């Protein structure tokens, strides 16, 4: 479904992403792992158009989407959440998701119908599915960190995506919140049939939900394969564990 070939991006000479390759099949959950600064977030930014790549290609459903702007990428039904919480702080939980739904329904140029009367059902359904319905009228700034991360995912769902990119979905969450979030991701994959690409530091989560894993080191792809294959791979041990022959997890 998604195919990244030899994607590269340098910032002032520093190769943040260096010939990265990645393939994601429909319906899969793929994890990207790698040490801090390996270029995971930059890779996601390149795929979603927030940054333009220097070279390489991104194919989505066999269509070249390299260098499209973020709103165009979103129209192809690719949505993402952010590592650092990235929501509309002054608006309520409901409004945050509603804007996303309105945007998908192409109603954002409507100047005179009150927003309050639009996309209510769709927005409520999404909030229900992620478990935020009870908090829909709260101002986002007053939510807990965990709820805000979930709101991130809810906003991404507003675009009715086929392909969902989650940048460290559980970072900074309490243990209980983390397990709720994992359940949510599993549910999105199983019941809604979403294809999911995510990156994460917690190996328990990675090996718990991913079908396949891509390992990134210094901007490049070390290996991509099923969990078993990656777990005790030598190159991964070199990069991650400093040459020790212990396995990940």
């Amino acid at each position, binding site marked *: 479904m998604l195919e990244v070939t030899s994607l590269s991006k340098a910032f002032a000479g520093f190769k943040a992403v260096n010939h990265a390759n990645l393939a994601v099949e429909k319906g899969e959950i793929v994890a990207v792992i790698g040490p801090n600064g390996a270029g995971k977030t930059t890779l996601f930014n390149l795929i979603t158009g927030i940054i333009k790549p220097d070279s390489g290609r991104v194919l989505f459903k066999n269509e070249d989407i390299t260098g499209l702007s973020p709103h165009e990428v979103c129209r192809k039904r690719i949505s993402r959440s952010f590592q650092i919480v*990235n929501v509309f702080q002054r608006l309520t939980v409901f409004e945050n998701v509603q*804007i996303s739904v309105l945007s*998908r329904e192409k109603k*954002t*140029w409507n100047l*005179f119908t009150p927003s*309050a009367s639009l996309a209510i059902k769709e927005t409520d359904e999404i909030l229900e599915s992620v478990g935020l319905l009870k908090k829909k009228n709260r101002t986002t700034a007053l939510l807990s960190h965990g709820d805000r991360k979930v709101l991130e995912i809810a906003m991404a769902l*507003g675009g009715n995506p086929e392909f969902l990119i989650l940048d460290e979905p559980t970072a900074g969450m309490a243990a209980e919140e983390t397990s709720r979030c994992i359940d949510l991701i599993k549910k999105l994959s199983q019941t809604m049939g979403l294809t999911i690409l995510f990156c994460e530091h917690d190996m328990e989560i990675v090996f718990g939900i991913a079908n396949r894993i891509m390992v990134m080191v210094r901007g490049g792809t070390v290996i991509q394969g099923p969990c078993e294959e990656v777990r005790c791979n030598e190159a991964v041990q070199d990069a991650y564990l400093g040459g020790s022959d212990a396995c990940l997890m």
Partner: protein
Amino acid sequence: MSRKTLLGLGAGIIVLLLLPLFIPRFYVYLVSIILLYGLLATSLNLVLGYGGIFQFHHAVFYGVGAYGTTLMLTKTGLPAMLAFIVGPLVSAAFGLVLGIICIRLSKLYFGMLQISLGSLVWAIVYRWYAFTGGDDGIHGIPMPEMLSSPKSAYYFTFIITLVSLFIMWKIIRSPFGSVLQGIRDNPVRSEMIGINVRRHQLLALVLAGFFAGVAGSLFVVVDNTVFPDMLFWTLSLEIIIMCLLGGWFAFLGPMLGAAVIIALRTFVSTYTDYWALVLGIIMMLVIFFLPNGILGYVEEKFKRGFVEPEIEER
């Protein structure tokens, strides 16, 4: 909107309708000026407070609207009412052009570029004696019969301001308005949920330009003059201060700010020439004590006092 707010608004409208019957001519003029400046400040707030765009030189659109209307009235024989529509449309078109140039930059850089381009327009108006009257401006602009008295000018201003405010209020509550506020809070996120940020901002700039142009045309009706100072950057600063003082997250904040500033300027000026000094002190006090503006402060107090609604009802 709560019943009480509606009642308050209704009362305000009735007072403003009856006002000219009781107050002397000068005050009728003054209230007209307050209304149109309030409209101008609200149009700025559409992009500043709701859109998060640093429109530092908003007065240009006010001036262009006023000059557009005036030149049409004085240089052509077309019906006067047409001039009042053309002025704002010219402003909107100008907002589009300036917007397309400036929108590539964000935040402060947008503001800086806008000030420079706007000042360029001011310089042209200031120098082009043959067309704009140069630094003299244009005086004694002929008005159609029905707008020639201060009272009729007042009612015209009042109705147009009311209609314009209503339209802007609708816009802010529309999906477009929601998106605009989303962009203010987080442009990157907005892009990522499929919103073309630049284009939405551009439309906001055009709308703000249009309503600033409406305010400019109203000034022509009320004062029958135009002069280059209407596009000078100090006026833009004054409009921004109106927004900040009244409260830029409240819809009627800029209107209140305009009322306070215009009233103070009028009365302070009779005692001292140092109006700018007084303005500066007011601004400092606002920043320190009322960071959300007067109306923002009132709303805050009101919400806190909401525990005892019985007292409020009486």
